[in-house]
């Protein structure tokens, strides 16, 4: 038998240079807080949280070809879970809050998936949107989570294995920063590994041609449901991080605009790569900061940028340097 070299999955960097680039990026983020004022470190923290949300969504969008507008709801739900399980003025350790938040978000995603994955295409989009709004209304219209104005929560303690990270008040942001970084890196590596498994290949097959996947014997509904649930749980990790960072929940973090923003990050970064959403999140956060300084018409700028990207840069920032066209959008119905 002849050895067949296996290509790495489409979504991972194909060149050594690309891999080195990612390592350099991670290293730069690691040293950054020691070089800039705390405000900018906290800005990068929120960019990393956004990147986690976008990355979890890439499992659906880039890997499986499922565009969901309800994904942000699992993110917001997880933040609310932290609020709901934390007793007033008692900080729970992160090793309790994180798994619980992910579990609840994953369970909610599983239930929504059971309904919504029976549909495809536009139906799927609309149904996920409607279910997301359903979760939104639960927090917006009931007293469960503090109602329309939101509520404060006690930030979870950064602790694991019996040890607690107890930083002085002025340096607390560093703890949050590195917890976010560790989770982002772990999420990236975990997803990279997942996509190299047979499961990852099955997702790829579904993205390209789901009908054919069924015909060669794949239970595509089950596979999509697993991916949807997992993506929901990972969005939960991002939402948990938001709660840890902000100590505040508000119904708007559950709304569908969150999903649209995450999609925007994916598009900006590029559909065809796992690191695209991270680049997109960093770029969009930077853009938001600059636009806020330059103009009062921030939404106008945002709208024009999206329009320009959709029309001119269909493969995103990550697609700027590469010429690997075999994964382009045109052949998804092949």
């Amino acid at each position, binding site marked *: 038998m002849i050895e067949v070299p296996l290509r790495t999955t489409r979504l991972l960097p194909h060149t050594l240079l690309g891999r080195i680039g990612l390592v350099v990026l991670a290293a730069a983020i690691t040293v950054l807080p020691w070089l800039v004022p705390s405000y*900018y470190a*906290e800005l990068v923290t929120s960019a990393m949280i956004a990147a986690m949300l976008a990355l979890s969504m890439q499992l659906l969008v880039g890997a499986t070809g499922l565009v969901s507008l309800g994904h942000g709801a699992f993110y917001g739900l997880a933040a609310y879970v932290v609020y709901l399980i934390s007793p007033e003025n008692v900080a729970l350790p992160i090793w309790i809050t994180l798994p619980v938040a992910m579990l609840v978000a994953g369970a909610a995603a599983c239930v929504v998936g059971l309904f919504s994955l029976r549909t495809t295409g536009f139906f799927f989009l609309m149904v996920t949107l409607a279910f997301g709004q359903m979760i939104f209304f639960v927090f917006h219209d009931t007293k469960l989570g503090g109602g*329309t104005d939101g509520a404060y929560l006690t930030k979870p303690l950064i602790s694991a294995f019996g040890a607690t990270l107890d930083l002085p008040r002025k340096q607390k942001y560093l703890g949050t920063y590195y917890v976010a970084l560790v989770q982002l890196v772990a999420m990236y590596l975990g997803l990279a590994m997942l996509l190299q498994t047979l499961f990852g290949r099955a997702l790829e097959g579904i993205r390209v041609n789901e009908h054919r996947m069924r015909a060669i014997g794949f239970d595509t509904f089950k596979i999509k449901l697993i991916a949807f649930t997992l993506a929901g749980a990972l969005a939960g990790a991002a939402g948990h991080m938001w709660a840890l960072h902000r100590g505040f929940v508000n119904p*708007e973090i559950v709304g569908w605009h*969150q999903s649209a923003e995450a999609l925007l990050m994916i598009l900006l970064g590029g559909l065809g790569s796992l690191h695209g959403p991270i680049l997109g999140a960093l770029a969009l956060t930077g853009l938001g900061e600059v636009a*806020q300084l330059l*103009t*009062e018409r*921030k*939404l106008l700028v945002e709208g024009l940028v999206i329009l320009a990207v959709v029309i001119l840069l269909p493969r995103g920032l990550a697609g700027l340097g590469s010429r690997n066209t075999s994964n382009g959008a045109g052949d998804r119905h092949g």
Partner: protein
Amino acid sequence: MTTPIQRLNRRALIKAGAATVAASVIPTRWAIAQTKPLKVGLMLPYSGTFAQLGENITHGVEMVLAEKGGKLGGREVQFVKLDDESKPELGPQNAERLVKRDGVDVLIGTVHSGVQMGIHKVVKESGTLTLVPNAGNAAVTRDLCAKNVFRTSFTNWQPAYAMGLALGKKGVKKASWITWDYAAGTESAEGFKQGLEAGGGQFVSLLTLKFPETNFQPLLAQIQGLGVDAIGAFFSGGGAVQFVKDYAAAGIKVPLCGSGFLTEGTLGGQGAAADGIETALHYGDGLDTPKNNAFRAAFKAKANREADVFAVQGYDAAQLLAAGLEAVKGNIEDEKTLHAAMEKAKIDSPRGAITMSPQHNVVQDIYLRKVTNGQNKIVSTIAAQLADPGTGCKI
């Protein structure tokens, strides 16, 4: 940088931002800080539905500075404006921009109560002196109160309580309250119920509608069946305009009254449908005092439109800030003296005299107003120096 009021253009703002970065890298001594201009962050809506409110508040703040010759407590003032877009999910991020990036000494903001929650979270941790020029969510001066946060506007509870009280005293036996199902709505309902019961009336029911929907028909069709003598309402902005019009068109015999925002800044749209509606608020038309007349004239000269309650609230926020800074001679680091001075301050507001409650919410007269000829004419003072209960606050 010679004009007293620094209406920064964009480019200057970027420079200011860069300066802040430098400033926070190189530690500065207090002596240097003392001679620097006082940085006042204005975090207000400058776009979206509440843009006009944000602008009127800003005018109010700037008027005080002009009156004081461009200095507060002996220090020049530099404004840093930030549009909060009335987006609650951006609240904490925007507040951090001012507090941490731009390093403001004082934050004045905002209108939207959801955004206020985000600001409050940030300034509670940073200890930045904060003045609330509008948002009326009770929590900020109740269970979440903070020693560095003062409110010169109202709580949703205050005008609604006064309205209930006025009805009760007038002999209304049964009344219901109708509002959106959101924090401000339920807080106003609570105030109305307590006021009505204090005046000897009976609270029948609370009718709610999802915020910010404006399809009032399903609720209006029920009112006749409630068997009440009066209906009180809390709506604002576009919702208020439409509610009053729909109420009139539905031909309901039960008289309508409400929290003052029902007819505040909305009479142009409501037209004849609003005639005769009684509302309660801490400000109104026809308040013939020298202070108010001077204020209105100055506002009109500056903004080229009539002053409103939001301008008054912004004006008073700056007056309270001035009182505090004068007590510490511009040394904003002396928090103890500063806060104590602000707590004790007696402000001569265009609306009448106001003071601060122990929870740092404004204590003020609430007027009964009646819509006459397109104006909210003040009829009488219902509740003199009314304070919010401030339940759950520990300062």
